[in-house]
């Protein structure tokens, strides 16, 4: 703030700047407190990469429509079901996931997918939580019911770069949300089965496997979709087994049923098990944000006041 005084600004402006500064500080300090902040920033990076570098066939109105519908439905929920405002972050993530994964050339279908995504959170609930990953059910249900839209597992290409970037960023998010075991056990189930079949049984060369595991879509699913802490089983061991099952089912669907984007369908098929597993095995309910005491706004304000010369 010293420069503000040096400029001889009026006290009003200085006050405004002080508030602005404290607001920014609060935002910065609360950023690491919620894994969703990481997720939003990383997914945004991926979306920009896709649009500007990989030239996906997605136009701005589609993105805008997805966000409009998803955030709109969520606002409804906030208003009528008295949900916390911060739940908007979750639907922001769902919209980003839809933009990243779901492709369609018809606006109405895109709107429908966004609607199903968020509405599913209010409809498919058991034991005080939703059990479908919103983006996942949005994609699968839309494709099932309308026959329109598609997933492009190839849109990312296969590159070691993806393993690196998505792996590292995903790792940050997943450890933040304490769901690393989900990512790992899914990879063990899916990847293990693929390695055994392709490498040891069929004798494919190693680079065919590298090609498989550096696929951007698979990594994105591993670190950003199946690891959703809100909709997966609460009990840790159960979670590990469940993710293994998703991996194996994805392997089965892809290898024997020739389903494209099989991990997404496997997750869709096994999500309804979550309430049952939660009923059988109790666990802690997940909270996106831990209760915060040390950075309450009053303290922040107290700190910022130190800068005021009159107090000094």
């Amino acid at each position: 703030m010293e420069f503000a005084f040096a400029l001889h600004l009026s006290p009003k402006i200085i006050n405004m700047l002080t508030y602005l500064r404290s607001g920014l500080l609060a935002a910065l300090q609360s950023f690491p407190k919620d894994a969703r902040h990481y997720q939003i920033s990383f997914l945004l990076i991926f979306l920009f990469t896709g649009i500007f570098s990989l030239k996906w066939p997605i136009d701005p109105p589609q993105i805008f429509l997805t966000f409009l519908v998803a955030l709109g439905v969520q606002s409804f929920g906030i208003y009528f079901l008295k949900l916390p405002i911060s739940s908007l972050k979750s639907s922001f993530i769902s919209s980003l996931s839809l933009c990243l994964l779901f492709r369609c050339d018809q606006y109405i279908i895109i709107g429908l997918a966004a609607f199903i995504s968020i509405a599913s959170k209010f409809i498919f609930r058991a034991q005080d939580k939703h059990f479908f990953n919103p983006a996942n059910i949005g994609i699968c249900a839309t494709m099932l019911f309308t026959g329109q839209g598609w997933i492009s597992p190839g849109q990312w290409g296969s590159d070691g770069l993806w393993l690196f970037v998505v792996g590292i960023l995903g790792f940050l998010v997943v450890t933040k949300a304490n769901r690393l075991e989900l990512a790992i056990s899914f990879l063990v189930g899916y990847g293990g089965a693929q390695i055994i079949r392709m490498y040891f049984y069929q004798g494919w060369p190693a680079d065919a496997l590298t090609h498989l595991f550096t696929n951007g879509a698979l990594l994105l699913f591993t670190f950003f979709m199946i690891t959703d802490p809100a909709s997966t089983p609460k009990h840790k061991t159960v979670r590990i087994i469940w993710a293994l099952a998703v991996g194996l089912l994805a392997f089965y669907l892809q290898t024997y049923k020739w389903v494209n984007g099989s991990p997404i369908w496997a997750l869709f098929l096994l999500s309804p098990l979550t309430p049952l597993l939660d009923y059988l095995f109790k666990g802690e309910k997940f909270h996106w944000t831990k209760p915060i005491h040390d950075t309450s706004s009053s303290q922040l304000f107290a700190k910022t006041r130190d800068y005021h010369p009159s107090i000094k």
Partner: protein
Amino acid sequence: MKNILLISVLVLMTTLQADAFCGFYVARADAKLFNKTSQVILVRNGERTTITMSSDFQGNVKDFAMVIPVPTVLQREDIRVVNRSIFDQFDAYSGPRLVEYHDQAPCNRYLYDDVVMSKTTTAKNAAAEMSTREEADEYKVAVIARYTVDEYDIEILSAKESDGLERWLNDHGYKIPDGAREVLEPYIKSNMKFFVVKVNLEEQQRLGNQLLRPIQISFNSPKFMLPIRLGMANGEGNQDMIIYAFSQKGRVETTNYRTVQMPTDKNVPTFVKDYFGQFYTSLYKENIRKEGYNNVYLEYAWDLSGQNQVKCDPCPSAPPLYAEIAESGVNWLQTNRGNGYTGQLYFTRLHVTYNRNDFPQDLVFQETSNRAQFQCRYILNHPAQYVENCAEWANYQDEKIQSRRKELRELASLTGWDVRRYRDYPNYFQGYRAPQPRGQRTGWIEEPTIPNNKNISPKPKIMSTPPDKIETAQINPIEISDSITTISQAEFIIDEEKESKREETKIPFAMIALTAITGLFLIHRIKS
């Protein structure tokens, strides 16, 4: 032993149970075969796939044979021999196209013209002959079926182990490249059958076909893929493949590789008209250099449904007729008299340049519901005819110079050509008036002067693509104007550059990534 050379080409595939089915050309004797551009028609209807394969087999007709892994034992009626002309027809219809427009003179009405030119990748053809065949038990290879379909003799083999199959092929006069065994193994493990296609010389003479006609196979399988790995068995080199895909639903794209649209709707300098073949070849090379070598490129996508009246816009050739579409295996359309039809049909043209390192997996496809249309279209804008005493001409000239500069920049970025040699291009058009000091205005440049021949030859600046990365496509004969001569392919100097370095960086990079992730995981464990 007959010395048989195995030439890899496109490998085609059908699928049923397990993995890919692919094919490779096999030649007898030491014929030097050249097999670079192959063309495939894929028709997908539900779980029924029809694949028609054509290759520009060039070599002694007697030295031709093809081994194709298939997922199932094909019945006699699943195998057809079709007319080669459908490939040429689809190629001409869907190739990249050049459109030219003539500006209207600022003060006068002029004719508006629209000429279309397209670049086709004509594939050449040759014929072949086949060898004798015996059955052999000790190879663990069984001949399941034998058919003679027109000029081809077809045997369907089932193998238990790759060693046996390799010995069987060797002992029956096919020389298998060293890498073939590893490539065969995954297909055998997936219970694929192999069929060997040979030319029956007597039948061929009786039918009077000098050229090898494409073979078409159909099968039911959820898999929708094209095995290319077997074709790369003998290692080095790049092969080009053009895929024409028909589907009811919409665009076809690859699921394990990126499908990237080629640049389109670009304004390019008018002299490109005379070099359109070279232009597109350079553009394609430059584009795969920018976008990546391990991608599949979309060149054309159009709704060919019966009710869609606009089957192309502009049309470089007549849109495919019912007979041609039916010949390629599309069986769900209803025809009304003549060449009209009703029913849903979507056409996709994909172009892929593949080699062993960039394409470790076979091509897997999916039908999407995307019915958006796409074409590779490049635009020429001819300046208007000069009109005297036209007040608007000065403005027009300024705009034209700007837009022609832009065209040159576009050309440079699209093709990687060094356009400094064309720096006269923006100013040289009819009616151009050179800005001159006051009092010295003498007149116009009457003739449309175009830089001399030497200046205009499009020598690419940098080409990191190896020369065989893309087979230079043939160009349709184009009228050559007096002032410009075309350049020969020999003038295309391509710098061979460190292509191989790029390949090697891939796997270490993946390893670094794995190590980093593992490290992070360990740190996380220790902390908690």
